[in-house]
């Protein structure tokens, strides 16, 4: 939002409050509502209306935000914002890739054991992570899966924050895993980054 000279802190705070509470709406619709409210406040100031009175007449920011959500849903015939947006789909793909990475890490032979028999013959056997470390190996393998699942199970309000946290931690885990488990998680981490960058609402 651009700042206009002459708009007070109280007005800016009120507008920011509406902006914050309508984050789930697509930006063209939300921007139009906010632009209308800004213009209204500018017109009120030009008409010599005291800023406190102008804000009081607009109503509570929470009520205006609730109206914006209600009108948007009425306009689109949407009972409530759809769960499956493009961002969700990308995050579901990240979860599937993380699970596939953990499955591969658990079941692909990644250890070799050389045994020398009494006859002096050497035999080399390949072993998986699970065979070598037992079920406790499942604990580190669960971490990337849980990280990728985090944004999918976070309420809409904290969705974007959870998406960023999930992507950053997945990248860190992928880096650490490359020196221990192997290169199993870069695809999941890349898709999680894409997911975190996508908007939380669909563009109208």
């Amino acid at each position, binding site marked *: 939002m651009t700042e206009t000279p002459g708009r007070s802190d109280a007005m800016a705070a009120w507008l920011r409050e509406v902006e914050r509470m309508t984050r789930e709406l697509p930006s063209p619709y939300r921007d139009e509502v906010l632009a209308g409210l800004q213009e*209204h406040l500018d017109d009120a100031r*030009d008409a010599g209306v005291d800023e406190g009175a102008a804000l009081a*007449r607009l109503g509570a920011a929470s009520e205006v935000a609730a109206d914006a959500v209600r009108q948007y849903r009425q306009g689109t015939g949407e009972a409530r914002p759809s769960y499956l947006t493009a961002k969700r789909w990308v995050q579901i793909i990240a979860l599937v890739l993380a699970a596939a990475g953990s499955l591969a890490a658990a079941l692909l032979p990644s250890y070799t054991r050389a045994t020398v028999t009494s006859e002096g013959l050497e035999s080399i056997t390949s072993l998986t992570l699970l065979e070598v470390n037992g079920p406790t190996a499942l604990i580190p393998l669960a971490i990337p899966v849980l990280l990728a699942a985090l944004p999918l199970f976070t309420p809409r309000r904290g969705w974007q924050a959870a998406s960023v946290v999930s992507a950053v931690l997945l990248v860190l885990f992928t880096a650490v895993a490359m020196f221990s488990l192997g290169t199993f998680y870069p695809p999941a981490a890349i898709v999680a980054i894409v997911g975190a960058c996508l908007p939380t609402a669909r563009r109208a």
Partner: protein
Amino acid sequence: MPSDDRVTTNLRKGVLEFCVLARIASGDAYGFELARELQADGLIAGEGSLYPLLARLRTGGLVDTRTEESTSGRPRKYYRLTPAGHAQLAAFRAAWVPLRDAVDHAMGERDD
């Protein structure tokens, strides 16, 4: 039982968009003046609730906007009715009069 306020709020919600369309039909208007008039007529409680409605009407193609300079030199958005908006308003008028009469009649019967 809904309170008196709740009844009024719900009734207003149902008719507000048509009152806005009717007002714009009588002459292009900008947000601030529309809000003032609607509040003075008791059709909206807070002036802020007008803007989500205007955004929906514009998205729905019932109104469109043109920009003109205000007296202080700022660009100001004027709303005007589209043909679809006129059609919607005509449909409301056709439905409203018999409905209003029916409600008046029903209320009259209860009050007697």
